[in-house]
């Protein structure tokens, strides 16, 4: 629903009296900002003003333009036309250093921490405290401790390299770096995507604190709950345009989703799927296991020193096993050990009831019938410089070759069929993987393993960073694959997804098994997973 009135006007009307006072309090103004790439318009005529000292959320599906809008303000992306002002001063387009000088600092998902340096060295990176060219380590440490007190976070002991810290702690260092450089506007791109629940809450509290210190925050997030929790204003992007904008009180989750998806019929269906997610958790899929059946894989006492201890489970054909627990509970390590990527892993393993050793290489795991879709799609999943069809065919290039020569025709035909079965548009099979959205990239990885099916597919965070529509498609694809007889082990930080998909959930906490939830014995809910992980009595069982 595109509004006819200019968005800024609509905003001021809706917010009059409450938060918006006069022009002096406006931190950032976009007027008619457009960004075109060769074939696409990433952002179309965006105009909006962001009042100072508030938290502003940008939401939308992947590719809707929200990150472009953020990138222009950060100086990472030069707009094709239009104007952006920060406190009335026009920014240096495409010049991140100029934007930084103007007080705008962006914190991206890929953090820019130097792993070998200490916490304070990272905080003062680029602007170290020094006297006559020599670093003043003591002064930096003191200022660092002071900052920690100011924003209410624990300090990292001296001498611990930043590389040893958790993602959340590293992110804090970046936020502090922004603060020491006198940032007045801080931009966050998906700040909570790789944080555990408690870390997520801590970050939201910190954002609240920064706001009360007068800092303007702009953030992009797929997590609508946190958007509604922390934001003062919500701006919805769809297909490169701002389609709706308003103060927090005007919004609820349903309305945000409706604006994000717009009137597209296909997306409406996805939207319904999303609303059905709740229903899915209540309606247990029929247990796929025949009595007395031998599991495809059984693992006992799986241990990876320092990460996982004594984890045991089994998985049958047609079953979806969820690994529940917080980030850092060892979920990813379990998957990696199963495909031979953890050389120090020990434990006992049976394949079809026959005792074997744990796989020592990916190829050995493949012989057992195990394949992994890694969490890091770009870094470990796809060859970004190759086109979509080659990425799909990579799991079995031999099957599209004859006499040792690859047949591009056969590859295109077969991979297109696979990719289309996951809702990937067949006419994009020749595009470079680099140019595809996160959702389409994930579909390619799923298609890769339908092209050369394993017996058990391990999916690590299959929906991370993917827009709502594609999420629903990927979830129903996983269910369909299980119904065809594939065993699936799924790890996701979105506990609702784990609950909706899994027949059974192994709950991990600090590398140990905290419990096993069986769908046919109990309904699996996020609160049940969390209370199992924290070792609590299941107080929410009735809910």
């Amino acid at each position, binding site marked *: 629903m595109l509004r006819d009135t200019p968005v800024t006007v609509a905003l001021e009307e809706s917010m009059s009296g409450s938060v918006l006072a006069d022009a002096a309090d406006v931190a950032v103004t976009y007027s008619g900002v457009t960004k075109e790439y060769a074939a696409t318009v990433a952002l179309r005529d965006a105009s909006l003003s962001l009042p100072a000292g508030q938290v502003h959320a940008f939401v939308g599906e992947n590719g809707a333009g929200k990150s472009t809008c953020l990138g222009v303000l950060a100086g990472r992306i030069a707009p094709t036309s239009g104007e952006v002002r920060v406190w009335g001063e026009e920014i240096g387009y495409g010049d991140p250093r100029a934007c930084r000088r103007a007080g705008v600092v962006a914190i991206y998902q890929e953090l820019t921490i130097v792993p070998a340096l200490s916490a304070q060295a990272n905080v003062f990176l680029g602007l170290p405290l020094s006297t006559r060219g020599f670093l003043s380590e003591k002064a930096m440490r003191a200022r660092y401790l002071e900052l920690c007190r100011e924003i209410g976070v624990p300090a990292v002991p001296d001498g611990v390299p930043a590389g040893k810290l958790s993602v959340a702690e590293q992110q804090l260092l970046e936020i502090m770096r922004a603060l020491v450089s006198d940032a007045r506007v801080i931009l966050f791109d998906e700040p909570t995507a790789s944080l555990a629940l408690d870390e997520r809450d801590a970050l939201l509290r910190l954002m609240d604190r920064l706001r009360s210190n007068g800092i303007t925050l702009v953030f992009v997030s797929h997590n609508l709950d946190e958007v509604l929790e922390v934001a003062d204003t919500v701006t919805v992007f769809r297909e490169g345009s701002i389609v709706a904008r308003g103060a927090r009180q005007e919004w609820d989750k349903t309305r945000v989703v409706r604006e994000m998806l717009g009137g597209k019929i296909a997306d409406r269906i996805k939207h319904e799927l999303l609303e059905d997610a709740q229903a899915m958790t209540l309606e247990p899929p029929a247990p796929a296991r025949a009595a007395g059946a031998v599991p495809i894989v059984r693992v006992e006492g799986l241990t990876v020193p320092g990460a996982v201890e004594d984890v045991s489970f089994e998985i049958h054909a047609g079953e979806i096993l969820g690994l529940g627990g917080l980030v850092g509970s060892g979920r990813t390590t379990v998957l990696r050990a199963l495909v031979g990527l953890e050389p120090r892993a020990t434990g006992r393993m049976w394949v079809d009831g026959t005792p074997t050793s744990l796989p020592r290489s990916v190829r050995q795991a493949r012989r057992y019938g195990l394949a992994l879709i890694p969490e890091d799609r770009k870094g470990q999943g796809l060859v970004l410089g190759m*086109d979509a069809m080659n990425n799909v065919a990579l799991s079995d290039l031999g099957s599209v070759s004859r006499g040792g020569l690859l047949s591009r025709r056969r590859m295109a035909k077969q991979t*297109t069929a696979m990719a289309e079965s996951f809702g990937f548009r067949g006419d994009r099979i020749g595009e470079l993987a680099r140019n595809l959205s996160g959702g389409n990239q994930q579909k390619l990885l799923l298609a890769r393993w339908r092209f050369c099916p394993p017996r058990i597919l391990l999916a690590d965070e299959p929906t991370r960073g993917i827009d709502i529509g594609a999420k629903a498609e990927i979830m129903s694809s996983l269910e369909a694959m299980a119904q065809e007889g594939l065993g699936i082990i799924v790890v996701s930080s979105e506990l609702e997804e784990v609950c909706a998909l899994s027949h059974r959930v192994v709950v991990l906490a600090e590398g140990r098994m905290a419990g096993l939830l069986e769908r046919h014995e109990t309904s699996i809910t996020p609160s049940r997973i969390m209370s199992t992980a924290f070792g609590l009595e299941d107080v929410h069982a009735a809910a």
Partner: protein
Amino acid sequence: MLRLKRQPSLAAATADGGVATFGGRERSTGQMVGGILLRYAIVFVLVVLAIVSNVLYPGFFEWGNLRNILSQNAPVGLVAIGMTFVMIAGGFDLSVSAIFAAAGVAAASFTGHMPIGLAFLAALGVGLVGGAVNGAIVTRLKVNPFVATLGTASAFSGLALLYSHSQPIVPTHTGFTWLGTARWSGVPVSVVIFFAAFAIGAVVLSRTVFGRSVYAVGGNTEAARLAGIRVDLIRFVTYTITGLCAALGGIIIASQTGVGQADIGANITLDSIAIVIIGGTSLLGGEGAMWRTLVGLLILATINNLFDSLALDTAAQSLVKGVIVVGAVALDSYTRRRH
């Protein structure tokens, strides 16, 4: 946004293998032309260079001159073919000049002890073993390829010097120079060998499962491993191919000069890497093509020929070569940013 509905672009099969294609997106003719111009920019550079050469030195396009250019550059071209495999797989090989010289010494020496064909084969075996040693050090001992081959370059060179007592070996067998100097209906045998190796290399790289795996390993090692590709084996094989190609180049140069010398070809490493880079194959791995190496070779060969015929000194040649290598990489980096 408008998109053309069209069938998967089967016609877009390119010499770059799976690397570059046009997708289903609509592009204006101008952008299309711009893209093609950038993609084949290096070919235009070669054409312009050849025309300029012919203006400055009117005999350039004469068959005698072209034949000279090709036979002079066949040895380094063979090395560059191997180097293309290693570099697309994300590796590097600094030991090619040592293998090149060692194989020449071996070929010259072996002719005294065995039939000539066998001697050449055995010399190729020297290169194969050298390449396999490189591959094993890189994949088994996990040594950075730069350091590993820097080390083996010194070791191979030392072995060749020890074996030959630092003396040139001049075989008395009359057939020894056949490979380097004979002609088949006017075409030097060395040139035929080079083009045969080029054709095989191009097909293997762009059309076979192995070749595609080389791109995958160089493009994203982890993704290739998780897809079930034998990453270490692929990388090992690329080093072995390079060893073989370097040896073939070394045998031909020994045959051309009629002498096996452990201290020749010091510039072979730099030149072969320069050829691959000038052609536009990425230093980072995963992107490139065999035809690019041929274009790179011809560019370097044309420059050398032009300088020789204008009787400019080698210092100037070296200077220009350096500028061109840096320019080629800068161009590559520039187009990558625009991508």
